[in-house]
């Protein structure tokens, strides 16, 4: 008997009670990517909005990743506040009652209307999920899952009848971790308790916000709508003059690009002993009390909470010491697993000079030759490394410079063989066959 199998692409329209409300992310809404322990990127990822991490501090892979309309916040006040707001939003969503229980149901092939959809444990998307906003500008889709959210390779989430605006309409509250499969297209903000992983080529129209774990990216586009983009606030001047023990010091830092009034504060490091910064004017005043090299960051915050900062180093010399200047002013970027060589030189004092790391640390794998100032070695890991190099001349006078050394990610690709083993075997056989063919045709 002939049996006919009819394959049905089942589109389920689940009639949930429409939800027309709003979820507030607070300051987390300005983040395209927010991690708890780390943010790691590989490849040419583009993030629209801020990239931040807190309470961890590791943000790697930018570049080659780029941040558009935002900045990188590594466990600073902005990232901390965003994490607090994320926790609030996460808990608010968690407390919203479910309208439909989809436990055990694969989201692939479904068409859903606004509502609160719950999964007791994990949620899986294989294929296409359609979200029908029913033409409402306030439509809201909340997805709550007890554990993981996983999308398969090439799966997609699309919104229809939204008037072309899917911003802030979809939220995924994930009880543990979320993973978007290779090449997935996703819509909505992911609020995960633990980690979020976007595998190669996964793109999302929404934020990826992880509370405790890492956000891992690999050649993705994270498009964050509704971001209130801060202007670029520049703290000036680029450098501050050095000081001398016992000599009054006055210098004013200013900010451009923000909305007045702008407040100034030292966000990391410390001013030389005896100096203070006036938050309302940016004036650094006082009399240095102790010699040494002091590296610190001054952050300017404008009326809208937007920030800009600059790293400074002030060397306070003992009375009678000349200014010792280190060159170059910046270090060229290196690449992990690739030999790096750069020489630091000093001028202005009495030779010979000795060199040392005064603050921070060189990347693992690099070392500084105290006698020559040669930085050499093979950096092992990528990242941004803030290090201050100090030169001491023959009579003990010191000068230093702060460097931000960027180590680019490990080689993203080996050139790969022109022909791999299989290719070589194929070419060998074909060449032999071609030779025999020609010999046959020419009766050799």
């Amino acid at each position, binding site marked *: 008997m002939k049996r006919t199998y009819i394959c049905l692409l089942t589109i389920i329209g689940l009639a949930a009670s429409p939800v027309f409300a709003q979820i507030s992310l607070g300051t987390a809404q300005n983040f395209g990517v927010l991690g708890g322990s780390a943010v790691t990127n590989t490849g040419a990822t583009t993030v629209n909005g801020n990239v931040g991490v807190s309470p961890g501090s590791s943000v790697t892979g930018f570049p080659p990743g780029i941040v558009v309309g935002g900045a990188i916040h590594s466990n600073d006040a902005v990232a901390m506040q965003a994490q607090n707001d994320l926790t609030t939003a996460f808990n608010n969503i968690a407390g919203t009652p479910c309208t439909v229980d989809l436990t055990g149901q694969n989201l692939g092939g479904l068409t859903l209307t606004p509502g609160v959809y719950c999964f007791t444990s994990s949620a899986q998307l294989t294929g296409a999920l359609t979200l029908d906003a029913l033409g409402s500008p306030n439509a809201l889709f909340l997805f709550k899952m007890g554990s993981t959210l996983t999308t398969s390779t090439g799966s997609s989430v699309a919104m229809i009848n939204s008037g072309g605006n899917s911003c802030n309409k979809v939220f995924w509250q994930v009880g543990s971790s979320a993973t978007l499969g290779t090449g997935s297209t996703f819509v909505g903000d992911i609020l995960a308790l633990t980690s979020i992983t976007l595998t190669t080529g996964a793109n999302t129209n929404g934020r990826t916000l992880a509370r405790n774990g890492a956000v891992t990216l690999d050649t993705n586009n994270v498009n964050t709508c509704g971001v209130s983009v801060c202007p670029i606030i520049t703290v000036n001047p680029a450098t501050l003059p050095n000081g001398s023990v016992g000599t009054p010091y006055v210098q004013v830092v200013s900010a451009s690009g923000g909305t007045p009034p702008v407040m100034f504060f030292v966000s990391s490091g410390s001013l030389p002993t005896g100096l203070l910064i006036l938050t309302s004017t940016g004036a650094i005043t006082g009399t240095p009390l102790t010699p040494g090299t002091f590296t610190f960051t001054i952050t300017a915050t404008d009326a809208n909470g937007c920030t800009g900062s600059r790293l400074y180093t002030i060397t306070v010399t003992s009375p009678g010491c000349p200014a010792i200047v280190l060159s170059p002013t910046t270090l060229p970027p290196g690449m992990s697993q690739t030999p790096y060589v750069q020489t630091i030189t000093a001028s202005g004092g009495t030779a010979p000079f000795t060199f040392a790391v005064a603050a921070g640390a060189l990347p693992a794998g690099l070392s500084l030759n105290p006698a020559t100032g040669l930085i050499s070695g093979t950096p092992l890991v990528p990242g941004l490394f803030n290090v201050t190099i100090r030169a001491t001349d023959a009579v003990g006078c010191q000068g230093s410079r702060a460097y931000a050394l960027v180590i680019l990610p490990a080689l993203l690709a080996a*050139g790969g063989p*022109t022909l791999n083993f299989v290719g070589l075997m194929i*070419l060998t056989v074909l060449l032999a066959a071609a*030779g025999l063919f020609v*010999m046959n045709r020419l*009766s*050799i």
Partner: protein
Amino acid sequence: MSSRQKIAEPRPLRPRIIFVAKFCVAMLVLYAVIALNQVNDRVIVPFTEVVARGAAIPLRGVEVTGTVMRSSRFALDVRNGCNGVEAAILLASAILAFPATMRSRLLGLTVACVAIEALNLVRLATLFWLGEHYRPIFDFVHIAVWQSLIILAAISIFILWSWKFAEKPR
């Protein structure tokens, strides 16, 4: 039986066996030569550095350090095996083994090696560009497309050369 009937003359086996044997021997010898540390260090690696520099010429914002091509967005290490030498050796072995005059062989070797290396430069440049701009298809082009093109080019070069310069029996 008619005397007009011709008996098909069997094709001599010996030249074919000699060709295949010479091909294998030449291939093994050349591979053994490039496997020597001194040859690798003094010839292959410097040559690979030249290849990396050559491949970077048409690309903007690409720095070359040793065998590493890198930009702000992508980096490529042109390692042994990526320099086209193995493919050129195979083609050269076939040309050396094929019955032809020494002059023809030298001409064939020159044209074949230059063509394969030129094609490999284009390969590396396009792969780097793809790596910068279209990472998702990098592996596909790298493994499927360019290998096929290299094989096709090598076979085409060999057939054209052997057809034109084969030393026919007197």
